[in-house]
């Protein structure tokens, strides 16, 4: 029942309309992108943070994850379109979501600055950057993706993460 092929089929079902090319990508990053989309869906931003018509997802271009994330660009959540914004050009307050990877270790200060300012849902799959104070950390457990949530930081940031989401997390701080 919990075979990877079925899991994949489920993820594909989520992404199929948005990114047909995602099939070609490494399943791991597609899965991560799908998880990120789901995180967005189970997160509530304060009204003040949602001024524009889009949910800005800031990510450094060129990474495998960034490519996978293109698949969810244009999809809607909370009635808004998700837009992928390059992390480097972003100013504090521009991003609703920040996704960083191992490649962003060199921009730790900038990540800290953007992720630490306002209601920003910060997500990473790199355990090292996670220590910089990011909210959600993803990891691979066999072929499953598991995640941890730092809910106290999320609360401080003004975000409300759904209890349903918290329930699924491997650990919650």
């Amino acid at each position, binding site marked *: *029942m*919990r075979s990877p092929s*079925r*899991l994949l*089929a*489920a*993820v594909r*079902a989520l992404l199929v309309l948005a990114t047909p090319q995602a099939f070609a990508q490494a399943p791991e990053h597609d899965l991560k992108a799908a*998880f990120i989309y*789901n995180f967005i*869906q*189970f997160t509530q931003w304060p009204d003040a943070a949602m001024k524009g018509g889009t949910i800005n997802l800031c990510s450094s271009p060129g990474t495998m994850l960034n490519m996978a994330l293109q698949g969810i660009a244009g999809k809607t*959540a909370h009635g808004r379109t998700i837009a992928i914004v390059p992390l480097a050009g972003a100013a504090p307050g521009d991003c609703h979501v920040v996704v960083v990877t191992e490649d962003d270790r060199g921009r730790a200060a900038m990540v800290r600055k953007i992720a630490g300012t306002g209601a920003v849902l910060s997500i990473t799959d790199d355990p090292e950057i996670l220590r910089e104070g990011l909210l959600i950390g993803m990891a691979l457990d066999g072929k499953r993706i598991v995640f941890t949530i730092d809910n106290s930081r999320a609360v401080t940031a003004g975000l409300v993460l*759904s209890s*349903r*989401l918290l*329930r*699924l997390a491997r650990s919650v701080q």
Partner: protein
Amino acid sequence: MNSPEPRSDSPRISYRLAIASTLSAGAALLLAVVLLIIVEFFTLRSTLLDETRVKAAVIADNVSAALVFQDAQATGEIIRTLRASSIVEGAAAIDGDGVTLASYPQDFAIVPPDMQRFRQEDHQFSLQRLEMLAPVKHNGERIGSLYVAVSMSALHRQLAVFALVSLSIAVLAMLVAYTLLSRVRHSVRQAEQKLTHLAHVDAVTGLANRNAFNERLEFAIREAGQFQETVAMLLLDLDNFKQVNDTLGHQAGDELLRVIGQRIVRTLRREDFVARLGGDEFAVILRNVSARSEAMQVCTKLVDTIALPVPIEGHDFFVTASIGVAFFPDDGEDSKTLTRNADTAMYQAKIAGKNAFELFLPAMNASVKKRVSMETCLRGALQNGELSLHYQPKIDLMSGALLGFEALLRWKNEQMGGMVSPADFIPVAEDSGLIVPIGEWVIQQSLADLRRWNEGRRKKLHIAVNLSARQLKVDGIARRIAQLVAESAVPAEWLELELTESMVMENVHAQIETFQELRKFGVRLAIDDFGTGYSSMSYLKRLPIDTLKIDRSFVNELPKNNNDLAIATAIVALGHSLGLTVVAEGIETEAQADALLNLGCDIGQGYLYAKPMPADRITQYLSVLKLRP
């Protein structure tokens, strides 16, 4: 013999009625219980559906994120919370592709469920379970389903308990209702029986009453008509009951009736029937009488038994009965005729002297008719001047001197064929009460005549007037007579009242005061027909009487009949020893007069001296006497 109540309704029928009404009530109650169970079933089912729907909705909501993340483990954990509900058989979370992500229990047999069955409804009932398919939504979109199967066995158990309790209550209610109903029925029946009893039983004697008698007579006649049998109907009237009632009061009278009633019952056969019709009247039905003589035997026994003394309050009372008998079918084919003819026969027995019985004869009707017309004529006799007085002289046996007269009533009526015998009309006058005004007239008239005759006489004559029993019962009769004497302006001692021996002795202690009162006014008293009745010597001594009259039956055969001579001797001796004057009546020969004179009898009266004469002849008679030396 005496079962006055008619046969009541068969208890079997009333029992069946009770059962039938109970059964129909039970059927109605059962129908109500069945309907209640059906309603309860749908209520319980709808409650179960609501509860399941709520449960499923809660789980579906909880499981949405796990479904989104395809987290089978978390999905399984969330679904397993349904374990808390014992009625949940199993559950499964199905994603948008219809693939089961997780189920509880792991090996749930009916997973994956047949989704086709849930096309229109979110639920599906079967005999064993309720299946529910709740949508799992995320951001308003259906991303999968939650399948929950709930066992119906708990509902069935609840329903069974409800049915059992309802039925028990219904049965209990039936039992209570039946008990109450039968109790009510019982008391109603008792009340009915009591009413029937009251309607058919005489309260005083406990015998059947007139009502029951009529029913029984009708029945006996119908039965006898079918089997060609003879029924004898006896009508029995006590002759002197009224005196007991008047003297001793109603309680003693009732006691007397009870005793007589018991005597009648004891005299009869078991199958005979006795009723008290009211007053001092009883009736007897003798069924299947083989011969007239059989009924006569019964009557003889009844007359004899009733005549025995009845001890009440320390005194012996003597009552007698007159019985009339009529036979079905000879004397009447219906109860009305039979009763009327028995009544006629009874009347005849009374006329014949009471303490006797008479069988009905068709001729009696004629005699009764005659009596009735006689009564009608007698009513007018006084006003029409049809009544007159005849006087019979009374002579001093020793000296042959005239002492006075006995006044005798005569009635002449053209309609009745001229002169009517006093023996015929006096009983009619007594029964109808006409004797009271007639008796007063006799006293007035005779005293008026006597006053005329005594005018200028040195030795005053006296007059004897007969007083009837009926007159003696009139309230204040003594004062009334004293008043009549006073109005006539003559001394009271001129008047002598003659009372028959049986009349005086019949109810002596009730009348003794009247006698004493009369005596106080100065009126003299004589006992007539002495020797024919039963005199109590002790009463004779106490009674304030002046004269004894030897009955003419003892005078007739004097001096030859030794028995009569002995009786006459005894009466004279008795009278003299009590200081009374002795009178002999019916003297027709010198030999009789001599014999009586020898016995010491004081006064004589009879054809030897003079026949009774109308007043004008007496005037003549007196003038002739005057001429004698």
